[in-house]
């Protein structure tokens, strides 16, 4: 236990997390501090470009891709199955209609790239390595959850998913496959892979050195936006609020199990747990507004951004990391 506390302390006392807390505090105190929208969106693109390129360049450097296929399959399955668990838990413990339950659980099947980036930065402070192909797993886990969420809504609702008009479907497909995070993550990964070490050297002063500082500025913004989403939204019933805390724990447990099965090293195991535990708040909300317009957007925006994201960043990341370390220490079955 002592070991977990010191790791949790490390996480909380790191500049990125402290700036997140500063943002939450300023947002809750209704300060007029805001990071302009254009800058917030560009910082997110920068973070994805940085971890994508670094992943690809490491790949080209001949880093053993052991376990990559396993990690990818595990990721896709987790993204597809977690919404099923979430759906039935929500239908049992809340008064959500089937569309809202399906939409919320799709968020939890998918991933939050920024939570992943924050976990990568945390691993850096603990000097723990991880397989850089995990970046590709992030991109792969974005979409299956949306498909499984739509299927759940279709099966549960009498009128069927036919509701998604042919026209909306084409916007939906483009939203799922070509949204900015997938394009930047996968694109930067491929470019890093093609240009390898030489390419890395030329972009490192931009993509590597200032990474942690940019993460601080971005998490300051995230804290402000999360706090304002919380204060702005109607008071949430206890059912959904608790769901937004225990669902990430269920996701993390499944992620840890899958990673151990596939035999990933501790760093990658922790990251898979983080991905399973994290909930999307950019890509999936946009898709759900098109596919399931009747689902209550205020609910899933508040749960994923204002409850689950802070929980994962403040508590989850060190917790899943300690669990991965503990699993690695105990001799497997």
């Amino acid at each position, binding site marked *: 236990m002592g070991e977990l506390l010191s790791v949790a302390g490390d996480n909380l006392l790191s500049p990125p997390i402290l700036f997140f807390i500063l943002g939450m505090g300023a947002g809750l105190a209704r300060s007029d501090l805001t990071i*302009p929208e254009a800058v*917030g969106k560009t910082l997110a693109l920068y973070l994805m470009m940085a971890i994508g390129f670094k992943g690809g360049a490491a790949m080209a450097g001949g880093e053993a891709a052991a376990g990559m296929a396993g990690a990818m399959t595990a990721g896709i399955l987790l993204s597809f199955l977690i919404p099923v668990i979430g759906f039935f838990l929500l239908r049992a413990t809340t008064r959500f209609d089937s569309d809202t339950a399906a939409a919320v659980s799709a968020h939890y099947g998918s991933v939050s790239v920024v939570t992943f980036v924050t976990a990568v930065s945390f691993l850096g402070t603990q000097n723990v390595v991880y397989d850089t192909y995990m970046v590709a797993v992030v991109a792969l886990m974005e979409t299956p959850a949306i498909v499984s969420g739509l299927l759940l809504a279709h099966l549960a609702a009498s009128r069927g998913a036919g509701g998604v008009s042919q026209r*909306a479907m084409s*916007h939906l497909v483009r939203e799922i496959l070509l949204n900015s995070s997938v394009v930047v993550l996968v694109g930067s990964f491929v470019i890093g892979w093609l240009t390898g070490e030489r390419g890395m050297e030329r972009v490192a002063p931009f993509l590597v050195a200032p990474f942690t500082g940019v993460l601080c500025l971005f998490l300051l913004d995230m804290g402000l936006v999360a706090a304002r*989403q919380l204060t702005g939204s109607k008071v949430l019933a206890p059912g959904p609020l608790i769901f937004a805390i225990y669902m990430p724990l269920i996701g993390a447990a499944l992620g840890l199990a899958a990673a151990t099965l596939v035999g990933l090293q501790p760093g990658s195991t922790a990251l898979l747990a983080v991905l399973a535990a994290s909930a999307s708040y*950019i890509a999936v909300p946009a898709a759900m507004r098109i596919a399931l317009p009747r689902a209550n957007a*205020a609910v899933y925006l508040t749960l994923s951004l204002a409850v689950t994201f802070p929980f994962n960043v403040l508590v989850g990341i060190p917790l899943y990391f300690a669990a991965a370390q503990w699993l690695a220490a105990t001799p497997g079955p």
Partner: protein
Amino acid sequence: MVELHKRKKIEVIIETPARPLLIDVLNRAGSPGYTLIPAIGGRGLRSAWDRNQLMDAANQVIIVTIVSAEAAEAIMAEVGKLLEDYRGVVTVSDVEVLRGGRF
């Protein structure tokens, strides 16, 4: 003396995710054109919203289209249906334009 022609101006304030759907409605209803204007905050029956830096899904956009009275009828009906699913409001008002032929 400048010759003016009576037309209708439809203004729709709607959720950003519904923007492509609304543009489809306008194109199919043969609207001669439209202009998109950014909204940076608002309040309706539900809680107030402020230009949310990161999640476009929570933002609104304004679409203005100058159309003939007949086209206005069709567009208002279609937009009404869209607003059953998506947050927003629509208004129509009288305007006068120079080059009648254009609209």
